[in-house]
């Protein structure tokens, strides 16, 4: 088996996923074209060396359907032999795409495969591609389906995190994101999005609210209370978890991930491939794992995936210098920290999706790049990147600098 390396990683800044967001004019295909072109151009990469492109997309329908990866490869002027595919493992799709790319390299089937992802949440809304587990009565009722927000509040209720705990975490995320931008920590990976004239449309993460404090968060109403109390999902959660007397509604727009637009691409290849392309690897993809977890509470998969990865590799938490867990909801991170016994100083050190947003299909690839940049900046060796996933799944990838 050959090693898989990360040679480079790029991402767009994240635009607000609303009708007035800075990137709303940019189609998912165009957003993908820009990261693919950017990755090629800054590495003067001969795209004939690339076998394939794997993109994560969570709502693969309409203009995010029809195989965005292949479409973008054509439009970006990649060698015509570079194919493309898109994958969906919900929120982890971008990281899953990178893992698949790495696996292709490891197996010896390819020298280079690009992993990445895109999501224009302003243009293709969450849920647009359908969700049988939520809607089909033969699936939803027997399997205790609840929406993610309810699952997040269930994590908080079951494991005893207070609204204050969650808000304090969120304030820190904003603070860290601001500091990282101020210090230019993301500069290495950011590709500003431009129009056909080369004019910059967005060069920073638009969603951030650096002024956020406990007081401003305190005024926000819970987001999922109606869903729980009015639609009946609180009872579904309670029927699955009878130890819950009453579901607490602690998550809101300020301590949950933001809805944004964005794309990312990661160039993954073998040592031989690097030689052919004249590129130096930045990190080795050491191991990865995906796993299913209990689907109603849904968001506790990161610890399960981490455990599986550790079991397979013989690694332990003490081998990890830097942790990156997607901030889908504050309670998810707090729970993971408790389970893995990680201090806040070692996880999401540059903030996360609560501050900067979570462009579903792209996020996994984005935070892989963020973790790599941070390893280099802080001169650390090993990072573990993980995300919680809808329908009860988890994913984890370990990279180490070379």
């Amino acid at each position, binding site marked *: 088996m050959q090693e898989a390396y990360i040679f480079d990683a790029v991402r767009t800044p994240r635009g607000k996923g609303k009708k007035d967001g800075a990137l709303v004019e940019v189609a998912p295909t165009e957003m993908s074209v820009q990261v693919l072109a950017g990755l090629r151009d800054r590495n003067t990469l001969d795209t004939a060396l690339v076998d394939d492109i794997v993109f994560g997309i969570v709502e693969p329908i309409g203009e995010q359907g029809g195989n965005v990866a292949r479409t973008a490869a054509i439009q970006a002027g990649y060698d015509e032999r570079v194919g493309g595919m898109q994958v969906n493992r919900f929120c982890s799709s971008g990281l899953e795409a990178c893992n698949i790319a790495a696996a292709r390299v490891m197996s010896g089937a390819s020298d280079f495969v690009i992993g990445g992802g895109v999501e224009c949440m302003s243009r293709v809304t969450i849920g647009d591609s*359908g969700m049988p587990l939520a809607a089909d009565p033969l699936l939803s009722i*027997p399997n205790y389906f609840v929406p993610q927000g309810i699952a997040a509040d269930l994590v908080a209720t079951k494991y005893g995190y207070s609204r204050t705990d969650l808000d304090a975490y969120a304030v820190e995320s904003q603070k860290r994101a601001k500091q990282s931008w101020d210090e230019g920590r993301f500069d290495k990976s950011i590709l500003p999005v431009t129009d056909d004239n080369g004019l910059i449309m967005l060069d920073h993460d638009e969603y951030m609210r650096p002024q956020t404090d406990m007081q401003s968060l305190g005024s926000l109403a819970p987001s999922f209370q109606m869903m729980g109390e009015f639609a009946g999902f609180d009872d579904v959660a309670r029927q699955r978890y009878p130890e819950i007397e009453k579901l607490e509604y602690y998550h809101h727009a300020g301590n949950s991930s933001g809805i944004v637009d964005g794309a990312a691409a990661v160039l993954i290849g073998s040592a031989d491939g690097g030689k052919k392309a004249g590129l130096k690897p930045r990190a080795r993809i050491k191991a990865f794992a995906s796993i299913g977890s209990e689907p109603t509470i849904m968001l506790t998969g990161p610890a399960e995936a981490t455990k599986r990865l550790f079991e397979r590799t013989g690694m332990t938490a003490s081998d990890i210098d830097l942790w990156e867990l997607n901030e889908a909801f504050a309670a998810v991170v707090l729970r993971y920290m408790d389970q893995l016994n990680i201090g806040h100083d070692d996880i999401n050190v540059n903030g996360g999706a609560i501050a900067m947003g979570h462009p579903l299909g792209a996020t996994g690839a984005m935070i892989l790049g963020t973790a790599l940049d941070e390893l280099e900046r802080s001169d650390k060796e090993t990072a573990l990147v993980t995300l919680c996933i809808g329908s009860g799944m988890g994913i984890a990838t370990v990279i180490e600098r070379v």
Partner: protein
Amino acid sequence: MTSLLTSSIDQDGIATITWDMAGHPMNVLSEAALEAFGEHWSKHAENDAVKGIVVTSARKEFIVGADINMLWKMRSYDAATVFSENQRLSQFFREVETHPKPTVAAINGDALGGGFELALACRYRVMAEGAKLGLPEVMLGLLPGAGGTQRLPRLIGASEALQYLTTGKNMRADKALTFGVVHEIAEDVISAAKTAILEGKVPSKAPWDEANFTLPKEQPQSPEWTQTFAGAGAMLRRQTQGNYPSPQRIMACVYHGLQLSMDKALSFEGRQFTALFMGSEARNLIRTGWFGRNAANRLEKRPQGVPPTTFTKVGVIGAGVMGAGIASCTAQGGCDVVLLDISEEAAERGRKHVEDYFGRQVKKGRITTEKAAQITNRVTATTDYKALEGAQLTIEAVFEDRGIKAKVTAATEAVTDDAHIFGTNTSTLPITGLADAADRPESFIGIHFFSPVEKMPLVEIIRGEQTSDAAAAVAMDYVKLISKTPIVVNDSRGFYTSRVFGTYTREAFCMLSEGISPAVVENVGKATGMPMGPLELIDMVGIDTGHKITHETIKEVGWETMLERGEPAKALEVIDWIVEEAKRPGQKAGKGFYDYDDKNKPTRIWPEVYAKFPSNGAPVDVDDLKKRFLHIQAIETLRCMEEGVVTAADDADVGSIFGWGFAPFLGGVISYVETVGLPQFLADCDALAANHGKRFAAPQLLRDMVAKGQSFYPNETAVAAE
């Protein structure tokens, strides 16, 4: 052969098929009637001289649904046969719908279930103002299997249709017209139907057979669609705890069927119908909810040879909430009531309670002001026993005290004749003992109401050792008079219902003391299909009452004897703690296992309950806890049967569902044992007894039946053949 329906052709060339099923109380879709209808319809459809066909009824109702006896007979069919029988009917209705010759439904009266489905298969529907439409199949654990789950949502949209399909609620004519479920409302539905045919108002195709048909509301797989179904699924789980497959499969029919052609949709619906039909829930609901309850309501077990009672006057002694409720029901049954208490004020308060109750019914639009006045006027408040003279029956609902009850009994007997029956509404004191105070113990009987009396459907009649058949017959006639459901049981401490119901809360106390979280106890109690968690329930009933009864029982039976019989000591500790130490008697005091808000609604479980019974830390085994809650009730019922307190399985089943709200989908306590299977149930008892104590020990009756391979319902096929 008796005539089930007739048909004729008028001078305009319109054939009318008229349902009028001789020998049946109502028009129903029986095998024979469907066959006859098919013959009539085909004959006219194939007759070139006929321009169109009108389907109507000569009865007050149109057609009220499938013949349940026919369905019951199909229980022995295998899935393939049920499915093909279902498809035969669906395809016939489809033939009616797609035939070039128009068929019009003239809905003169209620069209329910299959009757409504037949109307929906007609391409034009005229409805009488006072008629109702409805698809109540869900109540029997089934679904409308002749196109009802497909045609209704195609007419009114998925979310609207689900409201009717999953609840079985009726649709009135004005609503049906607004929805477009019917095309016209008419006084003379038959002539309006004929006019529609003659004037060419009947479309040549059903809307869904038009090439450009789209659904009226949510489009399949749209965001609205996902939202509708996700929300409906959660709401259904909230309401049913996932225990009822029938509304689930109805939702599935709408979800999947609307994405298919009508022919494939009917096939999908048939498969779902078959799955329900083959399952235990429909069988249980039909057995107890339909046959069992109807038999009880018809007084099938009434002692023979006793002439029917004509009630002109009924006495009620004790004008508290219970007594006043009994007075309300009796007056509503059309009988004069003497409401007697020791003071004028108390008696008048009771009468006022009746007046207020019917006042509220008027406000809710359930009865007219005149009717309310008429009923209320039947109640006379008094302190004078002489007023009871000439009553056929007197029921006492005074304080649970032997001395007071004895005085009341004597005073009543003094003014009434030998034919008079004395009923006691005690919920705990054995009848035979109370009858000691009577000169005519043969005319003394227990008539046990449930609270709130006006709402609760069951009355438990308890025969003391000396109670005569005649007294039992009068008590049963009385329950029929007030439109409730009677079961007759023999005397025992707690009779049947209170005795078995008590095991539910007692088991909850055991769980608490074992360190099972109060939240788990409550949630799992509800998951078994009980209307409330056990702690909320005993709060409502009154923990102090339970405590008092327990200690009286200990005094009379003896604690050692009770322990010998399997009484768990740890349950006593819990009730003693909450009542004696914590001094929280229940909801009426605003504090019990729960805390209550200023409207006396439960808010949260009192935190001290968690502190008092700290978690044992073991993982929650929901299935084991559910089994404990359900099995303990069934085991106590089996003991009641063994002791002769309850003499028939259907009495036990009906009593459990309508008395204390045992889960209807299980068909009652004994049907639950049948559903589990007797040998498995016995094995469960042995395991539970080994793990949790001898209160779970299997009664000998069960062991004997298992050994002989017997069932509690050996004659079900005989019922079906009726």
